[in-house]
């Protein structure tokens, strides 16, 4: 693990091959994805015994399932006989999974239950117990389900570390927990997954340019007036960026975008420093290393008159299907017991502003895919494309809260991107 010392003078390059070479992609899967806790879904997607969804961890096909006993399991979605894909649906409910090839049948806890003509053809000593589906380690954080096949990796709590302080601000506002009321959205797009990680980890610089249309059209809400913010880095590669609004300590604390009658509960759920951080943030976005990101906006409004004011938390997952193609999943995550109309308003904002079909998002993805067009060039290949010098010499300002992690008082900085790539390169170059 690299040390958590992000020096502003820490100069480094990311060669273009890291964005263009299919061999790098295979290595990433081995060296980065295999040794990380990866998001696979939200608990509310599989509420009842037998409920399952199929997902990817990197390029590995897995099944997230709730067993008959009510436990969450993440199983490798590959039959242990000849290895074909076992469960082909996106979503369903079943007490067992039966392979379409020779009919081996697995319980939804992964145990091999049935082998057609087993006793007759394999003999009475055939040991089915060693042929169950491989189960990953599974751990949840406020409803988000993570998994890893790495038996050596630390616990999820340790992996998230101090990032939990900030994630709890968004995921822990209600005692009733969280919900993903509209399920998941899955689509593919061109572009290397790291550009999305880099962008969502902390790119405040692109906002005024890539999303200029949004500012010109008055869609940026409190962000348009925000002037200061922080970039925060955490062990294991996570990072977060938050912009603040004016803080007036003489005023009672407000949580814009949250129903006013729930504010006392938010104060109760969060620590005073968490509440202070959260109440005065406009947008908060970040990366849970390597491939989960989140975007939280406090005041949203889905553009329609008379709509409920609702904060929006979008959780995103990007799995590299190749060096040039990404499969993305999005969820709206809300407090579980908030009114339906509040959730609906948040949902509309998400889809109209940050969803797959949203015009706002399209300008980001345009930049990610345009890199492909130049990757084939020979001269281009020799040019190191990535410059990470931003905000090496800016005067820091003092954050408005006392929070953990390496808090850098700079809103527009590449300190988070440097931190992401440093962690990534350490793993790729076996220095982790």
């Amino acid at each position, binding site marked *: 693990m690299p040390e958590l010392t992000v020096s502003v003078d820490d100069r480094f390059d990311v060669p273009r091959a890291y964005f263009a070479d299919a061999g790098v992609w295979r290595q990433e899967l081995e060296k980065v994805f295999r040794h990380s806790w990866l998001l696979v879904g939200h608990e509310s997607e599989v509420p009842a015994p037998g409920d399952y969804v199929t997902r990817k961890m990197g390029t590995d096909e897995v099944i997230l399932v709730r067993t008959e006993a009510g436990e969450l399991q993440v199983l490798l979605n590959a039959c242990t006989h000849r290895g074909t894909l076992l469960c082909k649906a996106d979503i369903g409910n079943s007490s067992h999974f039966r392979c379409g090839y020779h009919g081996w049948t697995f319980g939804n806890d992964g145990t091999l239950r049935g082998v057609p003509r087993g006793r007759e053809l394999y003999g009475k000593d055939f040991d089915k117990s060693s042929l169950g589906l491989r189960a990953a380690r599974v751990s949840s954080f406020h409803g988000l389900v993570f998994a890893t096949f790495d038996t050596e990796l630390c616990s999820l709590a340790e992996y998230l570390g101090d990032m939990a302080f900030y994630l709890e601000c968004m995921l822990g506002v209600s005692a009733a927990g969280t919900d993903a009321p*509209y399920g998941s959205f899955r689509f593919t797009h061109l572009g290397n997954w790291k550009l999305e990680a880099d962008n969502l980890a902390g790119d405040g610089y692109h906002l005024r340019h890539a999303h200029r249309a949004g500012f010109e059209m008055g869609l940026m809400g409190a962000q348009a007036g925000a002037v200061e913010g922080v970039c925060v880095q955490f062990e294991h590669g996570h990072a977060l960026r938050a912009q603040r609004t004016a803080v007036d300590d003489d005023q009672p604390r407000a949580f814009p975008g949250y129903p006013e009658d729930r504010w006392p509960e938010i104060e109760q759920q969060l620590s005073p420093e968490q509440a202070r951080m959260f109440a005065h943030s406009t947008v908060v976005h970040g990366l849970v290393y390597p491939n989960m990101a989140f975007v939280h906006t406090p005041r949203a409004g889905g*553009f329609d008159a008379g709509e409920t004011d609702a904060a929006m938390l979008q959780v995103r997952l990007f799995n590299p299907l190749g060096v040039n193609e990404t499969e993305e999943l999005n969820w709206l995550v809300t407090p579980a017991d908030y009114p339906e109309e509040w959730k609906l308003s948040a949902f*509309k904002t998400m889809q109209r502003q940050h969803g*797959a*079909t949203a015009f706002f998002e399209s*300008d980001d993805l345009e930049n990610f895919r345009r890199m492909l067009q130049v990757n084939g060039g020979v001269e281009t290949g020799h040019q190191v494309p990535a410059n990470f010098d931003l905000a090496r010499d800016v005067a820091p300002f003092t954050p408005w809260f006392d929070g953990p992690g390496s808090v850098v008082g700079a809103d527009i900085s590449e300190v988070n991107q440097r931190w992401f790539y440093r962690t990534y390169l350490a793993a790729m170059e076996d220095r982790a």
Partner: protein
Amino acid sequence: MSTRDEIVEFIHHETHLMNAERYDEWLGLLHEDFEYLMPMPVLRDDPAQPRHSERSLLAWESVSSLTLRFERILTDFAWADRPPAFHRRHLTAVRVAETDQPHRLAVSADEIVFRSRVPEGSTITSALREDIVDVSGEPRLVRRTVLLDVDRPDLAQIALLY
């Protein structure tokens, strides 16, 4: 009350305006409560089950959100639309049916949408388009639901209007 032929013509005209990027005129054909919905395609094992999610909508647009969408294209900063994509909607089998509401007709059409833009290349996407049209006065679109015939949509296929 419009005749069926008039409704079919209305749908062809509306689609032509979209193809021609005459968005202001197209917006003028929308009812104030217009909703544009694109349910998420879902793979379920049982062929008798629906192929699209009832709750997960990939797109949910209103008149005001669509107005902003088109306004953006006119700014100098619509990077994803500069240069613009080639696109064309092809309709076939336009069907008109009564609904249980007065002055509301159900119109459906099979649609092929062609789109081409570097570096995404060309996509040809098939969909079933289900509309509700208000015919109490001049015909106005009240709702459009786009049911994609694609199990794993790519952004190039869903980033435009059907």
